[in-house]
């Protein structure tokens, strides 16, 4: 205890001296030579849902190669018509239905696009005539989401080019991530954005691409149905002009604003070391700003805990203050504190675990209803999602806020290619989100079904009752009719994962998964479960150190999966390649089971034995009687454990004997089965494989254990409860009699 107090005092002293130095500092760029610098002006016309913009882009060729052309993402063209790759890909019928439900008045207003009106080298030739649409990922000639501009002369190695670009962005009625609803605008993926040029050495790190060794190339994928984004870090200096009644928020720091004579206001936002810029505008937003004061938010004992876990001095865990702005729907005034609490918890825990959040600001947007713009991340700018009547034990808006903020650390700072390795962002972040939620909040309450019964009704019989007021308002004892049980973050993704587990492996290009559901499972759910499993094998502390090392090492860079695997092996000091093969590169299911327990009396000799040169019979009945009379009975217990799945992993087996003794065995889990046999005075009462449930990916926890005696308590209790529910259901049906 005394030792702890001394450590505590030292840490307080250390942090106390480090803290003031770090507080209140404006952001200082960490990138000496940013590849991109945008200086942009844009004007929103709310009536036509259009943004007219102009920028000058200074692009640095960071390679030793001469580059003859430039590639740009024109993401908004995904919403131009039904022939874009985004609209055509996968789940056609579902997407078609969604598009039919995607309505606007007049109808043509719902589509979105971006036109590049002019591209010119500053002080040089007009490149507009050379622009063509290209389709690096598929043969869809109708897709216009990637634009190539040919240069009159290649950009020299380590040279720069300065371009002047005029563009017009027609925002769609928001269908996915970006667009408008009424006078609410979420303006994202909205300007012609230059792709990423990868030099030969960078591309050669990508296994299985022979062409990659030869030379560099543009990594500029089309906009796909499920994939997200990839871009180089740089500087964004953006002036946004909107009618004065609009409240706005954007990536970066608001450096100034000026009122114009035409009734508009021009806002200037600036941010270094980011790779995208998004903004929002609505006349209805309530704008609230609070400061994340790390000195108040992080308790000394938390610093002690995490410095121990991470094996780092407390000074290295010091954080920065952050100005958090919440742009809230007026209906959601009552949820403001929950948004801020979630944002602050996320800043704190991500910061303590992975490294300080380096930017000065965070803007959290509470999206308009039905806008399809919630739950998205952009640098220093995220969108959440809330109900005006949130359940006390549901994680809305906490879950989405923590998750989207978490992207600042993965997508934002460790900017892997989301087209090719979505899981490196989404999966690591889903894992991290779960860790924050289980650390900062009590378990979420689950509602599996209505009235406890998985009743499916024909759509026209389904009464349109809004779910949220009934989803866990404290004080209303709904537990008898709604199954309300704690959801453990560790395994909450299993139900989703298992249904798609065999469709794909994690390591795949985002647009090459079987379908959208498989993309989702293999980018989010499976990865979170896999990382939980990895954590169980490495230990929480080692995992935490590995995650921090990976994050800090790859900040402001573009890692690939092997970089992550290398860090895990390095920090753990173990060769975990077997794990990566089993669980990242294959779609094998893990399923271990105790399939039988048999107990036989050890009765001594039965049969014919050679004794004293004679054949002596030992009969069954006397042997049985001797066993019954014996005070020193022995039993032979045999336990069979099987590997029912294809995935192989070492597992423990825990055996309980009737006299309370326990025995723990280890099994490498490689062959299809193993058997444990014991001759003891006590019988085996139960056996359990993987008793700590290290394998979060396990397909069936129920068969992981087996008891020698059948236990009907659960069945009886649920039978009785179920009868009562059904009686009430039938009673209700009786009103139609």
């Amino acid at each position, binding site marked *: 205890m005394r030792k702890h107090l001394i450590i505590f005092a030292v840490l307080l002293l250390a942090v106390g001296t480090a803290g003031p130095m770090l507080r209140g500092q404006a952001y200082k760029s960490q990138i000496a030579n940013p590849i991109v610098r945008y200086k942009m002006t844009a004007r929103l016309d709310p009536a036509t849902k259009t943004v007219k913009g102009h920028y000058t882009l200074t692009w640095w060729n960071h390679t030793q190669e001469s580059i003859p052309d430039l590639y740009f993402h024109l993401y908004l063209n995904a919403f131009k018509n039904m022939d874009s790759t985004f609209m055509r890909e996968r789940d056609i019928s579902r997407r078609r239905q969604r598009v039919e439900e995607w309505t606007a008045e007049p109808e043509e207003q719902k589509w979105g696009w971006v036109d590049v009106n002019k591209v010119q080298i500053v002080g040089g030739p007009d490149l507009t005539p050379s622009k063509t649409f290209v389709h690096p990922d598929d043969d869809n000639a109708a897709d216009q989401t990637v634009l190539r501009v040919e240069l009159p002369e290649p950009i020299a190695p380590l040279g720069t080019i300065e371009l002047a670009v005029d563009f017009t962005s027609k925002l769609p009625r928001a269908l996915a991530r970006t667009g408008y609803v*009424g006078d609410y605008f979420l303006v994202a993926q909205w300007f012609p954005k230059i792709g990423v040029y990868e030099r030969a050495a960078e591309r050669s790190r990508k296994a299985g691409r022979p062409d990659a060794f030869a030379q560099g190339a543009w990594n500029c994928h089309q906009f796909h149905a499920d994939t997200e984004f990839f871009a180089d870090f740089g500087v964004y200096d953006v002036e946004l002009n909107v009618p004065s009644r609009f409240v706005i928020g954007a990536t970066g720091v608001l450096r100034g604003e000026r009122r114009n004579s035409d009734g508009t206001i021009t806002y200037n936002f600036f941010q270094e070391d980011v790779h995208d810029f998004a903004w929002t505008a609505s006349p209805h937003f309530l704008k609230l700003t609070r400061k994340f004061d790390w000195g108040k938010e992080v308790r000394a004992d938390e610093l002690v805990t995490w410095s121990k876990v991470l094996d780092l001095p407390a000074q290295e865990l010091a954080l920065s203050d952050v100005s958090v702005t919440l742009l809230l*729907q007026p209906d959601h005034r009552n949820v403001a504190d929950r948004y801020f609490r979630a944002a602050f918890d996320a800043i704190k825990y991500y910061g303590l675990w992975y490294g300080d959040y380096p930017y000065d600001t965070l803007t959290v947007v509470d999206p308009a209803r039905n806008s399809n713009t919630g739950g998205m991340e952009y640098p220093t700018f995220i969108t959440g999602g809330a109900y005006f009547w949130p359940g006390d034990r549901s994680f809305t808006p906490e879950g989405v806020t923590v998750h989207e903020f978490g992207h600042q650390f993965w997508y934002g700072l460790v900017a892997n290619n989301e087209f090719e390795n979505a899981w490196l962002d989404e999966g690591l972040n889903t894992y991290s989100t779960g860790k924050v939620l289980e650390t900062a909040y009590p378990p979420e309450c689950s509602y599996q079904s209505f009235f406890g019964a998985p009743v*499916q009704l024909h759509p026209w*019989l389904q*009464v349109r009752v809004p779910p949220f007021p009934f989803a866990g308002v404290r004080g209303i004892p709904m537990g*008898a009719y709604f199954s309300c049980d704690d959801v453990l973050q560790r395994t909450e993704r299993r139900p989703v994962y298992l249904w798609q587990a065999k469709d794909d492996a994690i390591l795949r290009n985002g647009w090459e998964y079987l379908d959208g559901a498989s993309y989702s499972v293999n980018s989010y759910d499976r990865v979170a479960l896999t990382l939980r499993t990895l954590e169980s094998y490495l230990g929480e502390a080692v995992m935490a150190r590995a995650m921090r090392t990976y994050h800090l090492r790859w900040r402001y860079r573009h890692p690939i999966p092997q970089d992550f695997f290398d860090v895990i092996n390095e920090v753990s000091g173990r060769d975990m390649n077997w794990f990566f093969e089993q669980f990242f590169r294959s779609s094998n299911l893990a399923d271990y089971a105790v399939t039988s327990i048999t107990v036989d009396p050890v009765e001594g000799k039965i049969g014919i034995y050679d004794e004293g040169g004679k054949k002596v019979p030992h009969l069954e009945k006397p042997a049985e009687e001797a066993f019954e009379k014996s005070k020193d009975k022995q039993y032979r217990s045999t336990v069979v454990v099987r590997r029912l799945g294809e995935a192989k992993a070492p597992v423990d087996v825990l055996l309980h004997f009737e006299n309370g003794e326990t025995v723990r065995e280890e099994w490498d889990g490689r062959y299809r089965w193993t058997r444990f046999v014991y001759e003891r005075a006590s019988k085996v009462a139960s056996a359990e494989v993987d008793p700590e449930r290290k394998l979060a990916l396990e397909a069936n926890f*129920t068969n992981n254990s087996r008891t020698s005696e059948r236990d009907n308590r659960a069945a009886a209790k649920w039978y009785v409860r179920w009868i009562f529910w*059904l009686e009430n*259901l039938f009673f209700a049906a009786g009103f139609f009699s």
Partner: protein
Amino acid sequence: MTSGAAIKEGLKSARKIRSAVWVLFFANLGLAALAALPIYRGILGFTGHSLISRELARGLPLDWLTDFAFDSPGSLDRYAEFIALLGLITIPVNTLLAGGVLARLRDPEQAFSLNGFFRDVARYAWRLLRLMFIGLIFYWLVFRVFNQGLGNLINSRTGDWQSDRTVFWVRLGAGILLLLFLGFVSLIVDYARVRIVREDGTSAAWAFLASLGFCLRHFPAAVTVYVVPMLAGFALLGVYWLLVPWQAINTTGGEGAWGLQREPLVVALLFIGQQVVMFGRYWFRVAAWAGEWSYYSGTRRGPSPAAESAPPAAKAEGQVAA
């Protein structure tokens, strides 16, 4: 007759004909026990030998539900269809039983016999079934208009509304409207049933129309007599929700021999408590019918024509009074 007097009379009559309540109660309990059997067998078969059954005895762990659903794909959906089917079966079953219950109201003092009860069930069966079909058509129409029609209209008109609070209240309003109209159809069907049994010889269609007229003419009182006992029954469910010590029930049992011995007792007590509530709900349901009978009779001149013509079946057979 006032609605208050009718309710009081209904409660008295329900006490007198409680044997009929038992029939209603046991018929539905039997159906529910049958419908719940797959749950018992499913849990026992899948989990009886697993240590996870101890967690399941205390709640509904998501891990177990995941295992069960994944291990037997489609079984929950199939079971849901089975429940829905049994739910549908309970509609005609309760329609038929209602005939037996209502016939008892002609002379509540009369001794109860199962033979007599089911003879009355058979006597009114076809007319009540026809009335049920008429009622179902109107329920369907109400659903089409207020759930689908109004629901779709609200969805299309509120698509661009940014305020979820406003949309919530609009939807809630539509939901309440739906419930009110469903309740109104149920009210008409209830009084039509009373009319069919009380005034033997009335056709189902005519009874429905006459009941509609009756309910409109005596709207406040007719609704009060229908609603008050129903709410009382619903309140029983509320009392159950508030009083059942789920925490204690879920933790009782525990490990070891003492837990194993105590568990069946806890389950038995839970079952008895639940059935007391259900009996109460059926009792109030019958009280509602009896109240409607009293109120309807009170507004008509003269005694029940059926009462005059009906044979004193039970007494004649010398059955033991309930």
